[in-house]
């Protein structure tokens, strides 16, 4: 199922939640909507789901206009952050609900529903728990039930709103793999919302980065990380040292700090350098090392320039020994944007 969002706008009171958003999603893609809170990512997801309706613009499913169609008519599967399970129903009846409420000849026979429920319980590795109530399950198990409930109706698109937000780190990691596996097994077009960049970059085929109701950049995880289109994306995705300064003659300068800014016109600018793109270099700028913190195979180094600018460097553990006293640093790669 292809999905097109065409210049969608949505205001809550006077606050614009979505501001001319355009987005094309291909059949079978796994797309992450990534952004800080209040960026409009959940509103965009709910607009796609038919739980929220835009003030202007169009939502197309497979070329058909569904802008004002109900969630049920769109056949979307929606997974909520807080699971939203039906507490008074067993796990099996929760999963069966979408098939059970169908009427007339659309409603599959009982045996067919039971078979489908078993199949889904197996898919999310919950076989044997069909008779439990949601209150008897852990958070991770509940979210698996919510996922299979959404899949039971064979949705044209699966939408997940911060699906792992309420879970602890270990469960989150395993459920992430689970979602990827389920997506690959079913091939259903999937869109999920997250504010966790690690989750978005690690799981999605493409990532759409939202800020203040606009999409700042859409691309593969590598593209948005390596070639951020805007200063916001550069600061939001991955770690970065941010400097405010000026560009003159293809070189960015901010106090003692300076690095290449090829192709950027002269004037005020913001420059970003990723911590792993900084390395000791005798031709570079001078910093004093404040602290070296070893984490597994990597060492993160805090340093500061003479005029008080703070710099973070990531190096391999073997290189960590070189970071003592006052050293000189140069940037292998940098991102500079006119201010």
């Amino acid at each position, binding site marked *: 199922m292809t999905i097109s969002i065409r210049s969608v706008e949505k205001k809550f009171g006077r606050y614009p939640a979505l501001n001319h958003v355009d987005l094309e999603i291909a059949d079978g893609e796994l797309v992450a909507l990534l952004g800080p809170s209040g960026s409009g990512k959940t509103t965009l997801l709910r607009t796609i*789901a*038919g*739980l929220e309706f835009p003030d202007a613009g169009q939502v197309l499913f497979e070329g058909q206009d569904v802008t004002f169609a*109900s*969630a*049920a008519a769109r*056949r*979307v*599967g*929606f997974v*909520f952050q*807080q699971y*939203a*399970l*039906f*507490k*008074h*129903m067993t796990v099996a009846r929760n999963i069966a*609900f*979408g098939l059970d*409420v*169908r009427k007339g000849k659309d409603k599959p026979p009982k045996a067919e529903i039971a078979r489908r429920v078993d199949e889904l319980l197996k898919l999310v590795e919950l076989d044997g728990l069909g008779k439990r*109530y*949601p*209150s008897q399950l852990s958070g991770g198990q509940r979210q698996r039930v*919510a996922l299979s*409930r*959404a899949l*039971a*109706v064979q949705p044209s698109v699966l939408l997940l709103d911060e699906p792992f937000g309420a879970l602890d780190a270990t469960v989150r990691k395993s459920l992430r793999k689970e979602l990827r596996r389920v997506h690959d097994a079913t091939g259903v077009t999937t869109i999920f919302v997250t504010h966790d960049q690690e989750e978005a970059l690690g799981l999605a085929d493409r990532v759409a980065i939202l800020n203040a109701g606009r999409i700042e950049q859409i691309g593969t995880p590598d593209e948005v990380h390596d070639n951020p289109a805007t200063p916001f994306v550069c600061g939001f995705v991955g770690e970065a040292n941010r400097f405010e300064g000026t560009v003159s003659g293809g070189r960015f300068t901010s106090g003692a700090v300076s690095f290449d800014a090829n192709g950027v016109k002269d004037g005020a600018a913001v420059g970003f350098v990723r911590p792993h793109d900084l390395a000791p270099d005798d031709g570079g700028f001078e910093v004093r090392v404040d602290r070296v913190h070893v984490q597994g195979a990597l060492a993160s180094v805090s340093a500061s320039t003479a005029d008080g600018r703070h710099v973070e460097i990531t190096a391999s553990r073997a290189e960590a020994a070189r970071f003592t006293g006052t050293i000189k640093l140069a940037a292998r790669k940098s991102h500079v944007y006119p201010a």
Partner: protein
Amino acid sequence: MAPSRSPTRILDDDHPMTAETISAPPRPAQRPLFRRRSAIPGFGLTLGVTLTILSLIVLIPLSAVAIKSSSLSPAQFLAAAFSERAIAAYRLTFGAAFVAAVINAVFGVLTTWALVRYEFPGKAVVNALVDLPFALPTAVAGIALATLYAPNGWVGQYLTPLGIKAAYNPVGVTIALIFIGLPFVVRTLEPVMRDLSADVEEAAASLGAGRFATIGRIILPALGPAWLTGFALAFARGVGEYGSVIFIAGNMPYKSEIAPLLIIIQLEQFEYANAAAIAVVMLAVSFLMLLVINAIQAWSRRFV
């Protein structure tokens, strides 16, 4: 604690192994016999006060009723407790309380729905009105209802031509009990309905459930336990209600005389034991009903 000695030293000839050289672990502390230790203070005090008050206010008076009635012989007891007049009074009391509780259960859900789900002008006033039956002296309510629903009252005058008599008969009793019981249902349902999150309904909608399916299969079952509690409270209150009912009931023996009134009448005739006998029957029936309702509740809460 002293560091443990090295084994070589213990086995040294100069230091023969004695009871003193190996320090025995301290004897485990005795576990309290009756209850676990808890970090939350005040168990003894609060439970003590609770049991004292419950005994003084509830248990001793209730047992006094039973003891008083036991001054009758079994035949006398049966004659007093199950006279034709008493049976008619029970039927009216429990019947009217049941009907009123059912009606309150239905309208209570609608009222709560409006109060919880929507913002509208005058909501605070409606909210306060719901509590009025709690606060109003029941005699005031009884006089007001009787005046309204009497055949010449504001409402009654329009009902009389339709052949409906809404005062001085069982219908009047039921009206009074509906008035008294409404806040019990509303105030019990309100917090539960407030807690029902919107995303559960959205989930149902996204799975293809229409509005009626969502209400019938998701919302009402989730409200079930609280609903039953509200119903039970309204019913129990209705069974015991006296003040507002006697003004509108008409109090005709065998027809519109409620059991609490019959007890008063017996007392006024100095038939204390007979009054106690009727009281014992009411006590038993109320107890039984609460037991049944609690059992249903326990069953409907199995998923919590």
